[in-house]
């Protein structure tokens, strides 16, 4: 099986879907000749032409709104937001419009679009090239929010997102783009949106995570294994819909739960997962549910010292796990 980086898996999914379905097209800033600033769309303009790989003006509200319009008319647009931090001008179109188009027309129209965006930090991106934005969208009924951690998941989930009949926000961690590699089978496959996966089995505690933090969590689990603790790691893969069953099954087994994510702590996905655990596994808990998350400040300061202070690293997750296990 070929080994790909996460961004190569994204690119492969885009190319295969464009090949398979002529209604699929890509639009965004610098996605054409430049191939996107991270090169996710590299080569697509040569293969599919400027009509299906559209370099847009610098205007996110229109990128989202025009993608939405084309989607309602029967196309399957993939709109790229160059950095998740720059999605805010498009907020009205995504949250206000796309998310409620189907509901508000009693199924009369629907919006099969994907909004792809690189998110997250630990790349010296400063306050405006580092943010995790998932909680804003996970809060919004009508949207799906997918965050793959591995190349295999990225390819299968992106294909599923493109074929999905509702709007999907697809977030790709920019530090994971080239640092994370993994086996990806050639050819077509999809993965179901809304299914979490146990990425490591364990008996003493569960960590629920996703995105880049999933990898830090796996490192922390390895560290704890050397200390004699067996940690199970659940990768949510999509934070809306959120696979409560897989989370609960794990916590009912291990009786302890930590949620780890890079997004700000307050009102983050961790708060929702914690509530799900309290509702569904309260009687199984041997310790309070804990969180290890980004600090409650805008993500994330530029200086390396401040950036490190923000990040939930493998060390911080390991420390949180020790606290959880010692409770």
């Amino acid at each position, binding site marked *: 099986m070929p080994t790909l980086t996460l961004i190569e898996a994204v690119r492969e999914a885009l190319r295969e879907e464009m090949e398979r379905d002529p209604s699929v097209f890509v639009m965004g*800033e*610098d996605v*054409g*000749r*430049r*191939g996107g*600033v991270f090169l996710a769309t590299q080569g697509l303009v040569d293969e599919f032409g400027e009509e299906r790989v559209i*370099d*847009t*003006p*610098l*205007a*996110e*509200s*229109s990128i989202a709104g025009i993608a939405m319009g084309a989607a309602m008319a029967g196309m399957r647009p993939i709109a790229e937001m160059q950095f998740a*931090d*720059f999605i*805010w*001008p498009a907020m009205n179109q995504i949250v206000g419009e796309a998310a409620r188009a189907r509901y508000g027309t009693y199924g009369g129209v629907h919006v099969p679009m994907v909004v792809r965006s690189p998110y997250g930090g630990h790349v*010296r991106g*400063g*306050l*405006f*090239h580092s943010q995790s934005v998932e909680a804003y969208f996970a809060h919004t009924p009508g949207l799906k929010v997918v965050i793959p951690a591995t190349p295999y998941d990225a390819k299968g989930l992106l294909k599923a997102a493109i074929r999905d009949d509702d709007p999907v926000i697809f977030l790709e961690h920019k530090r994971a783009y080239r640092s994370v590699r993994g086996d990806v089978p050639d050819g077509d496959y999809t993965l179901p949106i809304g299914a979490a996966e146990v990425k490591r089995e364990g008996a003493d505690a569960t960590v629920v995570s996703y995105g880049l933090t999933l990898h830090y969590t796996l490192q922390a689990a390895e560290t704890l294994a050397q200390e004699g603790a067996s940690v199970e790691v659940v990768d949510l893969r999509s934070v809306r819909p959120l696979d409560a069953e897989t989370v609960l099954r794990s916590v009912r087994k291990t009786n302890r739960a930590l949620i780890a994510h890079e997004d700000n702590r307050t009102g983050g996905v961790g708060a929702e997962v914690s509530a799900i655990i309290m509702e569904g596994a309260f009687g199984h808990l041997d310790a309070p549910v804990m969180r290890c998350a980004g*600090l*409650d*400040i805008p993500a994330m*300061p*530029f*200086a*390396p*010292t*401040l950036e*490190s*202070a*923000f990040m939930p690293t493998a060390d911080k997750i390991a420390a949180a796990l020790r606290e959880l296990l010692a409770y």
Partner: protein
Amino acid sequence: MQQAHPAPAGIEPLGPEDLLDLYAAMVRVRALDERVWILNRQGKAAIVASCQGHEAAQLGSVWALRKHAAAHFCFTYYRDMGVCVAQGLTMREVMLGFLAKEGEPISRARQFPLHGADVGRGFMNLSNVVGSHVPEAVGWALAAKLRREPTVTAVYLGDGAASQGDIHESMNFASVHNLPVLFLVENNGYAISVPLHKQMAIDRVAERAAAYGMPGVTVDGTDVAAAYAATAQAVQRAAGGGGPSLVEFDVERYLPHTSDDDDSTYRSRDEVEEGKKRDPLAKLQQRLLAEGVLTPERNDELRKAARREVDEATDAAEAAPYPGAADVLDHLYAADGR
């Protein structure tokens, strides 16, 4: 792109002394810009966006604000090192920003270089979200009007930024309320890789001004005298209660978008070389030498002094520590500083 006439009626052209001052400022900014690029390649500066090719527009416009407004305030974007330096940011402070070191004055190294605010010295650049500062600048100008203050607000933006919906809304409001604000567009023909003709179906951003009911001109932004004169006219108008103007500077970006960019996939080397022929610094040097305003000796001195100043600033910034994280939560809200 065609150029408007560079010397509008009623604006006294810059004299030799001013031109020499501008030249000295341009030499300093260029020396600084070249050095931060090197520091990036050495792995010391995480990100650099160059102002090379834009200096005449940036410095000429600030000179016009200084001379023709009782007070002024600049909303800048990431490419505006020239504006920040003209507003008083020292080389040492700039370097602390590029190296993200303790003592960086405008964001305490929380932000990219040249981002943050220095209200005292009259500039801010809050955000990397392209175009978002434009409505804020209009609000600043609205406050000046409401408080009967003589401030002229200048907001700098790129040709790409001009596509944002916020810019339309801002220009419309500014014109409806006759606000003392200048929209200064540094049009270098590219937004990262996207060329102007994919950004808009007209040749100049300035053409839009008419639709808002404000004057709009395009000038050669690599000619400091032209940049100065066009801005001066707009400043006079704003300061005299005449309302907003749009001044578009036709400039060149002959380096990649930022140090993270590789422009070779979307720009021919010929085009880049062609752009370099419009180097504003070389043009001003040539003019001043030809006119005898600048002697070769003085030129050498200026360049040596600038290099020395950059060396010292670099040494100081390299010697400075990174900021400690003890205050990482501070200044999120008023009250106790959190």
